[in-house]
């Protein structure tokens, strides 16, 4: 599954640098303690700009899974149909991610199943995080 490759900004560069080192780091608000993903200039909860980086373990669970049959992302057109799951992070279930669940057949993704973080290399040195069903 060739994914599009994110173009980092000054704000998001530390996040993508970590991904390229096969680590998942999220923003952690120094004011209210909330984790944050996607990356934003300020905390969604308290609007503080005192945001630090915190590495998380990379364990989660599938909330629900859609199946994409037609996509506006041209690079992914050859992959249809494919899963797009929403995965909650065990360390903070209010944080969720999109996931393609590589290795899981479409329409067979087990709702509520445990997933773990993986990193897929899209071009040399450029990785994308995804999630895979455990077991």
């Amino acid at each position, binding site marked *: 599954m060739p994914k*599009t490759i994110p173009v980092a900004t000054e704000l998001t560069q530390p996040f993508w640098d970590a991904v390229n080192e096969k680590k998942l780091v999220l923003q952690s608000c120094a004011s209210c303690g909330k984790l944050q*993903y996607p990356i934003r200039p300020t905390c969604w*909860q308290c609007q503080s700009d005192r945001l630090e980086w915190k590495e998380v373990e990379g364990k989660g669970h599938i909330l629900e899974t*859609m199946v*994409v049959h037609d*996509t*506006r992302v041209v690079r992914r057109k050859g992959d249809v149909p494919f899963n797009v799951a929403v995965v909650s992070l065990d360390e903070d279930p209010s944080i*969720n991610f999109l996931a*393609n669940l590589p290795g899981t057949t479409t329409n067979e993704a087990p709702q509520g199943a445990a997933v773990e973080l993986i990193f897929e290399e899209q071009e040399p040195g450029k990785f994308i995080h995804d999630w895979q069903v455990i077991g």
Partner: protein
Amino acid sequence: MGISINGWPRTAEGLGVWEHSGKVAITGYGYSDLERRWDGVSMDKTYGAYAVQALQRTIADSGLSPDEIDGLMVCPDPAGDSWSAEDRGTPRPYFDAPYDSEDGLTIVTTQWLIKAMARAGTPLNNLKFIDDESSSIGQLTGKAAQAVGEGHAKHLLMLYGMGNVEGRYHLEEGNYSSGGRVWSAPWGWMTSAMMQHAFVFLQYCTKYGGSHDNLAPFVLNQRRNGLMTPWGYYAQHEQYQITTEDYLTQRYVAWPNGLLDSDRPVNHVASFLFSAADRVKDMKQKPIYVLGHVQAQHPSKSTMATLGDHEEWTDSLARRLYEAAGARGAEDLDVFNPYDGFATFTQTYLEAFQWHGVKRGDAFDFYAGDIRVEGPHPFNSSGGNLGNGRTRTAMYTDLVEQLRGIAGPRQVQIKHETGACGQVTPGGNGHIFLSVNPSI
């Protein structure tokens, strides 16, 4: 130009009854022809031409002369669709004036519209209030009512349109993603509410039971109501009712969302005249009073908002709109046209407003009952976007017609003295509460 309007927007809890409740009324409405697409060459079918058409029909409906209009409010650039700036691409070849720029073809500013109305023989010579900074019909209706209530205009024309041109749009081409799309495009999702609402819909089914199949009666009924709307896309171009079999075997775009759950883009413009209530006594039409309006804008906490978020947000919306209108609750709401851009989220509004006693988790049973316009629970009598094409205004024009009693074959048989409608999604919307009386 934009003028700051006191009291706008109404997004907070606890604002109480709207300070201008019953002091503003809709006294005219009109809409343009409807086409699937602008063909790129027909000058009588541009967004600008349709805008002029809608305004002229609204003025005629109201019985006023153009000289009596002193306010104009438009959404110049239909947001989120094929006419958005990023999808226009390189400049097209333009035409003779007034179509010598994008303005008038795929966007309409107030500046262009004022000139076009003059050229069309209906000059708006006495405008004192002009605003073209709103982005949706949900916002516009509330803002127009607020502007009149605050005294910025006595008779304000409000205009909203949707557009569609040839080709696909919002494509993410190339190998790289940037901006906010870096959090979605790599996994194959990009800039559409479809996936967000498909996800929340699946959570709904998990929480309350049921499946996508349970939406069939609602979607079929939307089409049925649309087929009773003579100017709508389906009444003009696909004059047949879809079946349950059609629905269950539809082509999926992003399961559980299929083509029949999605509104079809069209070219269409609608307009409404908002008047100060102290000016409506001798007007041609029965006034439809604005009892309240509210807006909502909620950022998602993470990549996707959840069912819990949508329920919390729409509960607040319903509570605030009833409060703004001085209504007790659903028992004071007769006609209800919530938004249906995707079939997968309309039940969120239905249950939040508890229309006809429908509470959280009840929508599928309600859809399976008699929701026809001639029945006891005529839900979304407009047919909405699903029944008419992506006008985003059909639910508003229908509401005016229902309250006036001129909805023809769609006329509901239940009491129709009050009504509410809104647009767009649970995460960002505006809603309005109307009544044939200046108070409940």
